[in-house]
């Protein structure tokens, strides 16, 4: 190291930082911590809200599905009742026709006066 380099060493010694630097840093750090905690709180609230919305959506979906299922079951029950009524009517008609047929057959076999 020559004389000029020694001169550079002296000239480029570290300078003291402004006295306000540390105070400003502490303030900035505190502000950032506050901002972060606020954004974390907002995130938690939005997360809670999202869960609530999801729960409401699931409940609504369950209600709609239940309603549709109940309606289908009701339709099936009505269809079944209608089918039974038609079958009963057919049975009665068939029975009446059988009786009519028996009477006609009996009359046909009676001797003619």
């Amino acid at each position, binding site marked *: 190291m*020559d*004389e*000029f*380099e020694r*001169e*550079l*060493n*002296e*000239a*480029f*010694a*570290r*300078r*003291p*930082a*402004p006295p306000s*630097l*540390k105070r*400003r*840093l*502490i303030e*900035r*750090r505190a502000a*950032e911590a506050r901002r972060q905690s606020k954004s974390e709180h907002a995130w938690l609230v939005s997360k809670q809200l999202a869960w609530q919305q999801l729960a409401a959506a699931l409940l609504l979906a369950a209600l709609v599905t239940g309603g549709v299922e109940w309606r289908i079951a009701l339709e099936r029950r009505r269809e079944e009742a209608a089918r039974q009524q038609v079958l009963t009517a057919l049975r009665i008609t068939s029975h009446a026709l059988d009786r009519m047929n028996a009477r006609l057959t009996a009359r046909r076999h009676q001797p003619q006066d």
Partner: protein
Amino acid sequence: MAPDWQPDFEKLVDQHQSMVFSLALRMTADRGLAEEIAQDVFMELDRSLAKIESPAHACFWLRKAAMHRSADALRRRKVRGIDLWVEMEDVHGIQSEDRATPISARLEQLLATLPEPQRAALVLRYQEDLTPEEIASTLQAPLATVKSHLQRGLKLLRSKAHSQLKDYVRGE
């Protein structure tokens, strides 16, 4: 590395604020900008505190961050078209209460006229007493490049000092 060393932010600020501020100041030649850079560097340190493993690592990390942030600031300023030398002379001037001797002040002015890579290498060499290997690691540059910047920067600074400061520099 101390096995149970825990980084203490305020202690690190106390220990290294002068180093970070001086690096930024010599790279940008702007006190306001240097203070801003120093604040940003320490805020970044605060966010990365969990990754800091030892006091030496903290010092290395701060040097590297200060140099990178200063280079970024210079690049932004270049984009905005502000000339460093003119700004140093006209806006921030020579703050006499800040300067140890007239020769130091003039050498710092001359340093500000060097190209940025040479200035970075010289600041780390003569302010921080780093070896070329340490400078290369701090600037993440090849060793040969750093050595070349050191040689060229020193030669340029010497010639500028010779022509402008020959009455002051000892041994010239």
